[in-house]
């Protein structure tokens, strides 16, 4: 099979799908030893000036309509209109601070997260629960999903706009969630990074699942 034929296969698969496909998944469809990255690069160049472009989102590949045609194609989307100011702000906090607990979101916004905010974001499949933090109370942490990255055209959460500036300004430092923390000078102890779960407590569980 020549290179052109392999490119046609990837083109057909990517064109037919409305979800991004990983290069690994695509590689399974072309003969072994094909340079899938090179094929994808070539496809991307082929489409760069067309009405549809091949883009890399969430570490995967997808065809979508060209960004500069947005003004012609724009539609007000149901999902977005439904989002409240609180939900948008919560989404941004989850995106930039992930993994983040509910208490931390409340601390940053200075107000409790109303019921329905998180489940609206989860229903939109933009937010999901991650692992539990290994601190007292074992609170659930939240993060963004692949759908979130795809929706906003990001390859990685590291590509979030202005992330490094936030970091440099110290705004992504550990959030002290003790109530009225303004008065409290204690070192926050719940902010240890999430460790991969591997303690004995759980290991029997793990094995049961394998």
């Amino acid at each position, binding site marked *: 099979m020549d290179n052109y034929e392999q490119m046609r296969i990837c083109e057909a698969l990517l064109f037919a799908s409305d979800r991004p496909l990983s290069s690994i998944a695509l590689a399974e469809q072309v003969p072994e030893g094909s340079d899938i990255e090179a094929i994808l690069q070539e496809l991307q160049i082929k489409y760069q000036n067309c009405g549809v472009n091949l883009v890399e989102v969430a570490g995967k590949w997808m065809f979508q309509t060209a960004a500069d045609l*947005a003004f012609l194609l724009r539609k007000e989307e149901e999902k977005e209109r439904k989002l409240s100011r609180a939900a948008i702000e919560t989404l941004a906090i989850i995106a930039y601070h992930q993994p983040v607990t509910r208490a931390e979101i409340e601390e940053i916004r200075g107000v409790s997260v109303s019921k329905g905010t998180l489940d609206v974001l989860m229903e939109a499949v933009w937010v999901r629960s991650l692992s539990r933090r290994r601190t007292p109370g074992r609170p659930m942490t939240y993060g963004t999903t692949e759908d979130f990255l795809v929706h906003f055209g990001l390859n990685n959460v590291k590509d979030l706009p202005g992330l490094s500036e936030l970091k440099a300004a110290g705004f992504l430092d550990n959030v002290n969630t003790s109530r009225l923390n303004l008065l409290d000078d204690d070192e926050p102890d719940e902010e240890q990074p999430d460790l991969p779960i591997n303690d004995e407590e759980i290991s029997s569980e793990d094995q049961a699942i394998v």
Partner: protein
Amino acid sequence: MKKGLENKIEEFEMPDPRITKMDDLDKEERLIVDIDGFEGPLDVLLTLSRTQKVDLKQISILDLVKQYLRFVTQATALRLELAADYLVMAAWLAYLKSRLLLPEEENEDEISAEELAARLTYQLERLNAIRERAAILMSRNQIGRDMFVRGTPEAVVVTRHHTYDLSMYDLLKAYAEHKTREAVADIHIFKRNVFTLDQAISRLSDMLGLALDWTNLEQFMPTDIEDQQLIKSIKASMFSASLEMAKVGKADLVQKQIFGPLFVRGRKQNYTKEDDNG
């Protein structure tokens, strides 16, 4: 434009619809406030700080505190119900204000007033920064609004791992719904093992007869109980019993420090005034 040239540029900025300036804007800068529009005390502080028209790092915390306290007073005057969050913040800011106004005492255990003010500024800056990011994020080209994926997708072989279209949301929703139904279907109310107030009063009055001096209430607790639930119940009931007996004049209570042990002493029948200091 009667305010003069220096304010000219600012006049063009859209006023925050949630804060409407009253009357002819006397120096007091009075505010009418729509509480519903705000998302908590930090939101109010952030909005108020904008009226100072400077970098958040350079805002006058003292002015901000005054504005916030005025906001809370006015809201209360208008009989708007303020959530506890707003009042807690008001109390804290009043404390901060007094610290900022009074000369600082040397105290290593306490955080300095400047440090407290800096922390507040930090929180405001952090919220402001995340808001800016939220706005940037939402203004990005979005799939389904600005850019579109294939309108007639076909399932491709490479998605074979996902046989069923089921999201975490669906799964959790199903479990929650199940739990909801279960709650309606069968309600088991377990009889809790409790130590009643009557039992406690009877135990305490018996034992107070034996102990003449001040005695830690803890020492009247039964020692042979292992059930943690029951121990809690006994503590609560014994505490209530001691209050009850103090109320009817059968015992005196004293506690020397907050969260310290509670001492109890039986009152003799021929009780004199000088015993009343406890």
